[in-house]
């Protein structure tokens, strides 16, 4: 599903986090929001998710205006940097959470939920780990569980906030590959935040470079490298 962001602004106690940002993300695209800390990239992602409210501007998913919709009703999947898994639930219960909180009339039956959990565990390459608790898993495994959990309700849009930030280099590479594969397989529209330009450039179809609450350049990696549009882009990439 396509994402349209028009003139979005957000201020945190007098300091502008986003300053009239507009962005058009096409259906099926894989987009990176790249920038130094404080550039507003995470705020922008959280506004797309509905975890923050913009003061001005609007957000649309396809033709649907979601600016005023709650995070719960947007039908997105969200992956957090520090996993945010529920420590008191098993891996299977974590993944099933999005399904078990559905209203009774639309909720899938118990057996169906079980099947879905098994299927998601296979998708993230953790078959058979459903009975473990998050504390018994490695960082990379936890982030895979978080990904499976975010995908349980079949979102069309996947949002990831520094998803590899807490992982070491080797796990990071493996997980990047897995994420890209899942993105293609499920036909998702994915947006992820990173401050690592190598990560953004190897993974994304297009990269939005943010600085001080504005978008400096939004283009495919090759184009940004070939034709940086501002001094900031040039220095950030060097």
């Amino acid at each position, binding site marked *: 599903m396509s994402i349209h962001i028009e003139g979005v602004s957000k201020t945190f106690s007098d300091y502008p986090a986003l300053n009239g940002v507009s962005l058009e993300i096409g259906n099926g695209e894989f987009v990176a929001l790249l920038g130094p800390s404080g550039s507003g990239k995470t705020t922008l992602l959280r506004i797309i998710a*509905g975890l923050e409210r913009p003061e001005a501007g609007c957000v649309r998913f396809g033709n649907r205006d979601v600016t005023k919709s709650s995070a719960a009703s947007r039908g997105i999947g969200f992956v957090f940097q520090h996993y945010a898994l529920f420590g008191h639930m098993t891996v299977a219960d974590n993944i099933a959470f999005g399904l078990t909180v559905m209203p009774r009339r639309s909720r899938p039956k118990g057996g169906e939920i079980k099947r879905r959990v098994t299927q998601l565990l296979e998708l993230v390459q953790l078959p058979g780990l459903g009975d473990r608790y998050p*504390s018994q898993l490695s960082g990379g495994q936890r982030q895979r569980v978080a990904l499976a959990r975010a995908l349980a309700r079949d979102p069309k849009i996947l949002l990831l906030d520094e998803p590899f930030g807490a992982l070491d280099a080797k796990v990071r590479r493996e997980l990047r590959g897995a994420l890209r594969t899942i993105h293609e397989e499920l036909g998702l529209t994915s947006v992820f935040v990173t401050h690592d330009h190598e990560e953004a450039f190897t993974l994304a179809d297009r990269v939005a470079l943010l600085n001080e609450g504005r978008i400096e350049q939004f283009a495919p990696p090759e184009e940004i490298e070939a034709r940086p549009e501002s001094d900031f882009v040039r220095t950030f990439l060097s």
Partner: protein
Amino acid sequence: MGTRSTLREPPLVKALLMAAAFAYIALMLLLPLWAVMSEAFRAGAKAWAAAVSEPDARAAIKLTLLVAAIAVPLNTIFGVAAAWAISKFQFGGKAVLIAFIELPFSVSPVVSGLVWVLLFGAQGWFGTWLIDRDIQIIFALPGLVLATVFVTFPFVARQLIPLMTAQGRADEEAALTLGASGWQTFWHVTLPNIRFGLLYGVLLCNARAMGEFGAVSVVSGHIRGETNTMPLHVEVLYNEYNFVAAFAVASLLTLLALVTLALKSALEWRYRAALAART
């Protein structure tokens, strides 16, 4: 480790410090505990049983349980709500709210009781209004509950605020993005995350609610068999030189303290395991 060796005490100093600590605990804590128990049973188990089962004592036990059964749930609900608001939202006046939550700890219990007399007593602000409508608050159950709520107000909130602040909002946000309602998020995510801290706070709140003397004494009126809680009943018996009965009821309160201590230790042990598992 260079600092370790400089911090290591000579064995003699260590032994002296430990001996001093143990002697102090024995003198200040264990001796009184032993005194209460031995006085309570001085006339034998039969006299003890008679003292704690005579009608006034039973009324005092019932009243204490009733007051705690009202005050503790009220402060639990308030404590969770306050801790939730303080730890998960940004708003002005947060520091003031935290300071006010702690206020009952720094106010003398006499004042904690007296404020209710000033508000609802016969000569108080709402006194005539209440008398006209035949509503009794002071020298009755509502007054005891109010005084107890005031005194035990901070326990649950204080326990939860640092815990919930440390846990942050990520788990709740995750639940929201997964489609959970606010209520579902609270029941399935927030409450399980704080369950040990909450139990711990409720336990301390309950111990204080049952044992409170000063504030309750001001609003009680000391009517035997009617408005005397257990601590007040102990005082009445003691003032009547009825030492065996006084210490018998006191031994029940002491028992409550020991049970609280045991549960608290069990929870701390459990809580640490749960905390370690989270990271």
